[in-house]
């Protein structure tokens, strides 16, 4: 493995290396378990570059990275925010420190990073990610560059633009489930036989007339064709479907595969944002306050820690929510605040003071970080008490006053909204329904409507892009204001017609 950032950087100064050894030791002593972690020191431009590249020093050429880079650079220059830390899920883990940070910040970041590294290694949702992604990303970059040399920047970049419009359309759970048998049973179907009514030979012609038999044969044949759908079941991994079935050139297929592979690599990070950031925050707080801080650093630490977990009234800060939840879980399992007895107790005071000295907190949080993702995490641990204690609310747009305002503090509503926003990353659910729609080789996608309409202009543009890949008319079945609609792009114009939802 080569050193990713160009040579000029030495890894760590002796002082940082010493701090790193110290923090690593603390982290291990608490039972955190991680791959070897390599820190590198970057200046802010390099940091912004790596951040724009999603944590990697090398990505395929594309303007979207330049766009992100500009955004980061500007907001840094204007003092809007700065990136303290970055770490990538890889074996070994790579993490970056910002050159100009204070020592106490570097310590905090290191402690935070070890939290992430432990999470990457042990959380089940990361278990299928490629741990050599550093190399893979570099290979992707080389590959795409090669295609650019061969087919021209405009063509390759244009195709990647198309792919990026579609890169949400993957099936995040498919890596854990066998959606379809690996080997299909290709035995030939028995030709359908029309059952005759038993009759003696001389009556047969009258009881089972020839025309009727022919008619029945035809009907069975039609049904058999109908059953031969493609795909057999609605397929959520639209990208895979396109790779396998769209009439693409080899390089395009490969580029699409590349985008898909990267989308799958990043998916678990989005799936566990709250848990993962909360976990890292929990551990930096623990390691710093119990071990690593010295007296002079307390104020700076408190300042930065509180900045990390600050609440913004109209937003969920994943650092804060995760951090508070982890603390709450530990506390509840230490005191035994769960289970039948606790749930059925209706005395407020004794519930609050409940402590049966169970002491399972630490064990519970380690177990939780192993098996949950954000959705199941919130579902299991976002309790009514927690919700009230931390003053959560739902808000709504009030058209009369033209402002967003607090709607209610009902736990059920809050939890429901939170879970909804996390479902499928807050993206609509889109499936491939038919790759041979109306027997004309057209593509039909289904939007599984769950209460919120799609943004129609974007959907139309996306269909147009999809058309370029599929090269035949493409359709999307969705609901618009409660009515079934079929949106179509036929290569020249957009069409809309009614459809049954």
């Amino acid at each position, binding site marked *: 493995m080569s050193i990713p950032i160009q040579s000029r950087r030495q890894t760590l100064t002796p002082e940082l290396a010493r701090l790193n050894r110290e923090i690593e030791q603390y982290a291990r002593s608490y039972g955190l378990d991680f791959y070897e972690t390599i820190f590198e020191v970057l200046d802010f431009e390099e940091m912004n570059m790596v951040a724009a590249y999603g944590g990697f020093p*090398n990505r395929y050429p594309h303007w979207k990275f*330049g766009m992100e880079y500009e955004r980061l650079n500007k907001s840094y220059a204007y003092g*809007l*925010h700065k990136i303290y830390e970055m770490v990538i899920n890889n074996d070994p883990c790579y993490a970056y420190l910002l050159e100009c940070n204070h020592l106490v910040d570097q310590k905090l970041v290191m402690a935070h990073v070890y939290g992430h590294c432990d999470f990457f290694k042990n959380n089940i949702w990361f278990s299928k990610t490629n741990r050599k992604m550093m190399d893979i990303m570099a290979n992707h970059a080389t590959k795409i560059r090669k295609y650019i040399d061969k087919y021209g920047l405009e063509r390759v970049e244009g195709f990647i633009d198309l792919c990026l419009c579609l890169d949400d359309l993957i099936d995040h759970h498919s890596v854990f489930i066998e959606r379809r048998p690996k080997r299909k049973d290709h035995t030939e179907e028995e030709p359908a036989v029309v059952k005759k009514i038993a009759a003696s030979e001389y009556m047969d012609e009258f009881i089972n007339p020839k025309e009727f038999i022919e008619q029945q044969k035809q009907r069975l044949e039609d049904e058999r064709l109908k059953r031969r759908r493609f795909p057999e079941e609605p397929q959520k991994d639209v990208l895979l479907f396109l790779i396998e079935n769209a009439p693409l050139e080899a390089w395009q297929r490969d580029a699409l595969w590349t985008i898909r592979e990267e989308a799958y690599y990043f998916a678990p990070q989005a799936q566990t944002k709250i848990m993962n950031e909360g976990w890292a925050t929990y551990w930096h707080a623990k390691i710093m306050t119990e071990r690593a801080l010295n007296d002079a650093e307390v104020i700076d630490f408190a300042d930065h820690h509180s*900045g990390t977990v600050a*609440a*913004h009234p109209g937003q969920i800060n994943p650092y804060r929510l995760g951090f508070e939840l982890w603390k709450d879980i530990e506390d509840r399992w230490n005191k035994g605040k769960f289970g039948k007895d606790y749930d059925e107790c209706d005395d407020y005071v004794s519930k609050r003071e409940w402590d049966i000295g169970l002491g399972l907190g630490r064990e519970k949080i380690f177990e939780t970080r192993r098996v949950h993702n954000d959705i199941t995490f919130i579902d299991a641990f976002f309790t009514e008490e927690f919700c009230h204690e931390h003053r959560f609310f*739902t808000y*709504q747009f009030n058209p009369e006053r033209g402002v*967003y305002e607090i709607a209610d503090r009902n736990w059920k509503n809050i939890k429901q909204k939170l879970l909804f926003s996390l479902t499928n990353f807050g993206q609509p659910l889109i499936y491939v329904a038919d790759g041979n729609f109306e027997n004309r080789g057209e593509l039909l996608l289904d939007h599984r409507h769950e209460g919120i309409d799609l943004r129609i202009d974007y959907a139309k543009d996306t269909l147009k892009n999809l058309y370029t890949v599929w090269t035949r008319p493409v359709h999307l079945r969705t609901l618009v204001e409660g009515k079934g609609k079929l949106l179509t792009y036929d290569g020249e114009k957009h069409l809309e017609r009614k459809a049954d939802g």
Partner: protein
Amino acid sequence: MILNIEQDYLRFRQIVRGKIKQDLKRYISQGELIGKKGKDFVSIPIPQIELPDFRFGRRNTGGVGQGEGEPGTPLAPGDVDENGDGKAGNAPGAHILEVDLTMEELAQILAEELELPRIQPKGSAQLKTERDRYSQISKVGPESLRHFKRTYKEALKRQITAGTYDPLNPYIVPIHEDKRFLSWKTKQRPESNALILYMMDVSGSMGDEQKEIVRIESFWIDTWIQTNYHGVMTRYIIHDAVAQEVDRETFFHTRESGGTVISSAYDLCNKIINEEYPQELWNIYVFHFSDGDNWSGGDTDRCIHLLKTDLLPKVNLFGYGQVESTYGSGQFIRELENNITDIDNLVLSRIENKEDIYQSIKDFLGKGK
């Protein structure tokens, strides 16, 4: 050092400038450009290209937040994550810091973003004032101006090169040669005067939304011109069927009703300039905002005449911004376009909604007169 990303960055800038990939142009969003005095709430435009994908429409479903307040308590606009997707910042480890900007910095950002040319002061025989600014470092100077940090740095450098620096016993003793002092630079600043004259149509068809647009736009124009001139006078005229001069407060908060006679305002404007601001001594900027629904064609002709013969020869810039309104016919701007050509200190701009303000300011001030 050249970063790998440089190429991606250049490519992105080219797209934004419309040099390549025109088809992406319509996905460029500029972000909002809103300044609020008092609360110092500023958003900086950073162009972003949003590729289309399947996504939910605008969710008025709201979201989940955290904090104090009873049902019905409004949230500050900047606090709400309008997508309601519950993701706070997409960059890993991004911490939002408070911004504290002075008006000067703000104007500088504005200039960078809008790529505005500096306004040239009128005439060359202008009075100039001199001001001293302590913006330099010098090796000599009085002790009272000693720059501690620079001096320390010099001493540290010297001790490290000389090998007398001991990290375990880090005493830094500056000698005479290490000392650095603050020093000043005399800056000449053209003492030219500028007048900004705002006119607004307050007839029945100008609603709150239209006024909001005028307010935001004039704030930015004000900010920009203030940084270019030392003494800026601002005058305000409102008009419906008749025009009157008002103070700032009234200008932004009046709601009148009734018809529209635009020439009444132009008359008054002309009068103010003639009586108080001779064009040889003043740089004059006039901005007029209306929904473009003038009362009669005859009056429009009169306006055009006034502009051609009286106003345009005197002013540096005459900006006419037409705000989209559901009631107005919007005819006025077309009349101006058709009848006044080849005069380049008249700038016309259509402002359909808040997002257009950015472009409109660019239209108005892009020429730098």
